[in-house]
């Protein structure tokens, strides 16, 4: 494997992706990611200098909506699936650290 993924990298990506992996899963993830990156490295065989990255496949552009209120009170629907709610708000563990 040309791409050796370190423990630090896996931990870092875990923070970005908000995933907590067990030690076993981490080992597996290191293997999987290393192999995938080796595989993706094949793309470097292609000379892409001067090629614009294509984020959108069609040249559709300027899709707008007009500034007109179309939605009414969305409270009940918005909160319908909330794992935890208090009145009309969602409840999350405290975000402010002292």
């Amino acid at each position: 494997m040309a791409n050796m993924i370190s423990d630090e990298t896996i931990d870092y990506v875990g923070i970005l992706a908000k995933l907590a992996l067990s030690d076993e899963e981490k080992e597996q993830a290191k293997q999987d990611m290393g192999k995938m990156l080796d595989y993706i490295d094949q793309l470097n065989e292609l000379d892409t200098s001067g090629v614009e990255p294509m984020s959108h496949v069609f040249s559709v552009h300027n899709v707008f909506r007009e500034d007109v209120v179309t939605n009414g009170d969305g409270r009940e629907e918005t909160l319908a699936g909330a794992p935890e709610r208090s009145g009309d708000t969602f409840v999350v563990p405290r975000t402010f650290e002292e």
Partner: protein
Amino acid sequence: MEKSYETVIGLEVHVELATKTKIFCGCSTAFGAEPNAHTCPVCTGMPGSLPVLNRQVLEYAAAVGLATNCEITRETKFDRKNYFYPDNPQNYQISQLYLPICRNGYVEIEAEEGHKKIGIHEIHMEEDAGKLIHDEWQDCTLVDYNRSGVPLIEIVSEPDMRSAEEVIAYLEKLRMLIQYLGASDCKLQEGSMRADVNLSVREAGSGKLGTRTEMKNLNSFRAITNAIEGERERQIALLEAGENVIQETRRWDDTKGESYAMRSKEDAQDYRYFPEPDLTPIVISDEMLARIRAGQPEFREEKMERYRKEYGLPDYDIDILTQSRHMAELFEQTSAICGQPKKVSNWLMVQTMQLLKEKAMDAEDICFSPEHLAKLIALTDAKAINSSVAKEVFEVMFTSDIDPEQYVEEKGLKTTNDAGELKKVIEEVIAANPQSVCDYRNGKEKAIGFLVGQTMKAMKGKADPAAVNAMLKELL
């Protein structure tokens, strides 16, 4: 030693745009709704929902760019900024990194050394986050997504400012331009204008920038000034002690006058930006740009020039009247009705400004109509009310936009023109104040002032002081 340091400041200013709806959905942006009332699948990140751009957001953003001398990016795109936080329902914010709508602009401010250009690096469009409310009782945080998806522009300056005064001048300039455009009301207290301060210090004369910090949570000009002073001192103290400034985000606590690092090991500050696949690119054509340009209002400099020519007002008046577009419009409309620009100007510059200051209000909040101000001026011109009654009426008009004519009538505030009644009252005042009468007759001119006052009091203010003065002299 402090003298040898220079402060280098750049600003990131977020402005909430004055659209009726959110940036990517048809939910209202109005303030004051019940929590989560102004939400839908799009602005709460429901699975499967998709954003569609509000045209007005693009037009406001481009208009602000034109007003700040920016280049408008003809092909602009949105990007996703990925970070987990509960105020952000998708855990990514739709923003612009790679192709922001405006770049390379500037605004001019008045600095100590005269005119100074503050560079604008870029302006981009993005969505606001929801509101987090800390619930002490339950020790948890409550989330309200009413503000989620409200359109923002972020104006990123170059690190061109050197003092808190320059920062305030820059913010005031931005606020005025944006208010003139009608693109936002720019209220710091209500959060429709927010400034993050990037600050570093360096030894005077050094060409290299020091390590900067970013200060957040600044919701008044006073907090901004305090935070700049505080951070400058903190950084200098670190350098003097031979330590390094760490590049970090800090939260300013204005009550304590201190800032705190907002650090967390779970905070990687790696936003993994990539082009937003759910929105199409925007191509701004010549026609579109010309239309936005044509819609630009008359800005302050042009207005000042015109006021000099058209109204012949002193520069001092013009300076105050044009600080806000709303004030300027009020001036122009009232003058058009009553044809007495200087009198209109006086009411706006003196009484209006004084009340705004007392009530800590913005010129944008003035609610009385030009018709009513014109009527008030007409009443004083006709000597139907005297100046102290006029001020009293004006205060009521300022708070609740009453019709002064009607008000004066209803409250019976009209000046009495009945000479017989006035004579009777004056005779009573003379009889009741022999000492003052004596003083006056003995050459104490000032004593008449007291007698005028007594007469006005007895008349409940409804007399013309000049007429009272004349009659008093006659009777004495």
